[in-house]
């Protein structure tokens, strides 16, 4: 029971907000506000409002010290958006309440309507608190991460690593589990399960007013699930990678610090192994081009004809008329082919076959008659490199009768 008007209290809060915020910051960092700190703050602000602080129960005595009482503390947290991260165990309490209330609603669905309505209200209330806690927690963890990233408290790398590990291990990962849709025991999954049930009830329940209440609860659950889903996305997509990165970077930086401190990079630590470049290459730099050039010289070799030196041979020309006269002067000839051989041998002892056959062409002259011998016999003609076996043919002038 306050003696003062509510408006007076609110006005007091507005007037002395800076002082109250200062006390709030002390409690955030130190957990409690000492009597001396209150005196110092009042002195700094040149203010004499200790009585009102106690009268409006903004400060409550805690042994010799003070604490900002819970409703004001929550209000200040909300106004300043400076929430102390909740441990997952604190959040899980809402999960347990939600599970218990839902179980009771299902079991007593057709019993006392009054208690059913009260349980539905309580469930809605717990869901709101849970959603708010999750939202506040994500905000506070984001705030802490950014503080850590900017290193506003000038922490050493080792301290930063420890803090990042602590946030990941005790806050972010468990919170992620609570909100993980793939985790069967997560509160988020429980809320989805409740949504399905409430959705059915808002259509199937026999009493219209309770159907409407189920309808409201369903809308709240849909909104809550959307909120939680977006908070979960912030945690897994932004918060966790950020903290992980702060931790990794800090570990690297601490490593550089250790390496360089006291010149230990020269004295204490051997550097990482590095390939020693040898000048004895497995390949000579131009081996490919040289080998290619060597083999290519044989690839396109052109045919070479070598003519023997010496006096040019006199070319023999077949004089048909001369040979015809010689033949006619000796007609009849008993063995024409042998005669041809003898005739050319007289002119050219080493005749070629083509030259020989030029002479044999006389046989086709119209002036001569050809007879073969009976029985047929062959003549053998030997030249330098060939032996010809030819029929013995008798040749004589046409229309000239042979003398017996």
């Amino acid at each position: 029971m306050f003696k003062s008007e509510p408006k007076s209290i609110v006005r007091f809060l507005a007037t002395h907000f800076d002082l109250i915020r200062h006390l709030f910051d002390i409690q955030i960092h130190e957990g409690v506000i000492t009597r001396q700190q209150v005196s110092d703050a009042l002195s700094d602000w040149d203010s004499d409002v200790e009585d009102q602080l106690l009268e409006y129960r903004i400060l409550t005595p805690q042994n010799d010290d003070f604490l900002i009482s819970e409703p004001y503390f929550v209000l200040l947290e909300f106004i300043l958006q400076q929430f102390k991260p909740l441990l997952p165990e604190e959040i899980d309490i809402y999960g347990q309440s939600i599970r218990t209330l839902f179980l009771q609603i299902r079991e007593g669905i057709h019993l006392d309507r009054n208690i059913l309505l009260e349980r539905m209200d309580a469930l809605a209330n717990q869901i709101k608190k849970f959603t708010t806690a999750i939202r506040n927690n994500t905000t506070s963890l984001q705030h802490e991460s950014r503080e850590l990233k900017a290193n506003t408290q000038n922490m050493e790398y080792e301290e930063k690593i420890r803090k990042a590990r602590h946030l990941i291990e005790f806050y972010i990962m468990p919170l992620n589990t609570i909100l993980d849709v793939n985790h069967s025991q997560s509160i988020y999954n429980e809320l989805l399960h409740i949504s399905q049930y409430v959705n059915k009830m808002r259509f199937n329940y026999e009493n219209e007013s309770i159907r409407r209440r189920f309808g409201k609860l369903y809308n709240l659950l849909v909104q809550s699930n959307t909120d939680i889903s977006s908070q979960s996305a912030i945690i897994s997509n932004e918060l966790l990678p950020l903290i992980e990165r702060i931790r990794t970077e800090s570990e690297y930086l601490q490593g550089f610090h250790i390496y360089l401190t006291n010149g230990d990079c020269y004295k204490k630590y051997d550097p990482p192994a590095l390939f020693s470049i040898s000048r004895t290459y497995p390949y000579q730099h131009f081996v490919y081009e040289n080998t290619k050039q060597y083999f290519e010289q044989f690839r396109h070799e052109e045919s070479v004809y070598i003519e023997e030196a010496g006096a040019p041979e006199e070319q023999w020309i077949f004089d048909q008329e001369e040979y015809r006269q010689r033949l006619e002067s000796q007609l009849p000839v008993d063995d024409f082919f042998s005669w041809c051989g003898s005739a050319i041998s007289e002119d050219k002892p080493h005749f070629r076959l083509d030259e020989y056959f030029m002479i044999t062409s006389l046989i086709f002259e119209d002036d001569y008659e050809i007879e073969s011998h009976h029985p047929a016999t062959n003549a053998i003609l030997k030249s330098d490199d060939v032996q010809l076996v030819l029929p013995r043919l008798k040749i004589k002038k046409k229309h000239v009768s042979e003398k017996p």
Partner: protein
Amino acid sequence: MYPKNHKKIVTELMDGKFITQDDPHFQILKDHKEFYVRFFDRSFGYALQSTPEYHYLLSPDTQESTSRDISIFFSVLCYELDQEGRNFMDVLNFSDLHIDEITDLFRNTTWRDQVQANKQLNSPESLRRLIHSTMVRRNIAVKLPDDRYAFTAAYKYFIDYAWELVRPDGEEEEE
């Protein structure tokens, strides 16, 4: 039958180059890893090392002074980038630096003693030479137009070494 571009791959690795993912030889080495591990071991006694991002050779004797120069270079560079409020991992991974930016960071570093004691780092000219000759030749840095340099994934070899100093003995990297 040797894999495609066998001679180039062997020559590059034996020039001390880190073969990174953007190099077409990276995939050839990956596909014929067993062959190349055996090839380098039996032919020269060298060990072919592979990570998901680069391949490199190790010889029984190490080029200790160069390795130390490069390790100190990255330690100081990352530290100073962080001090300037820049994300050193982003700079090394996705960005590039003008040579003057680098020499300025080394000129104003808080690790002055360590830098001054190193002949490869203690003047803008020597620093330029370390980056331009040694690191570019080994494919740790890449020369871009206008005196700018980017770093290949091989930088991780040197900063992971510093990271190892922090990790408690026996702690395995998380999968």
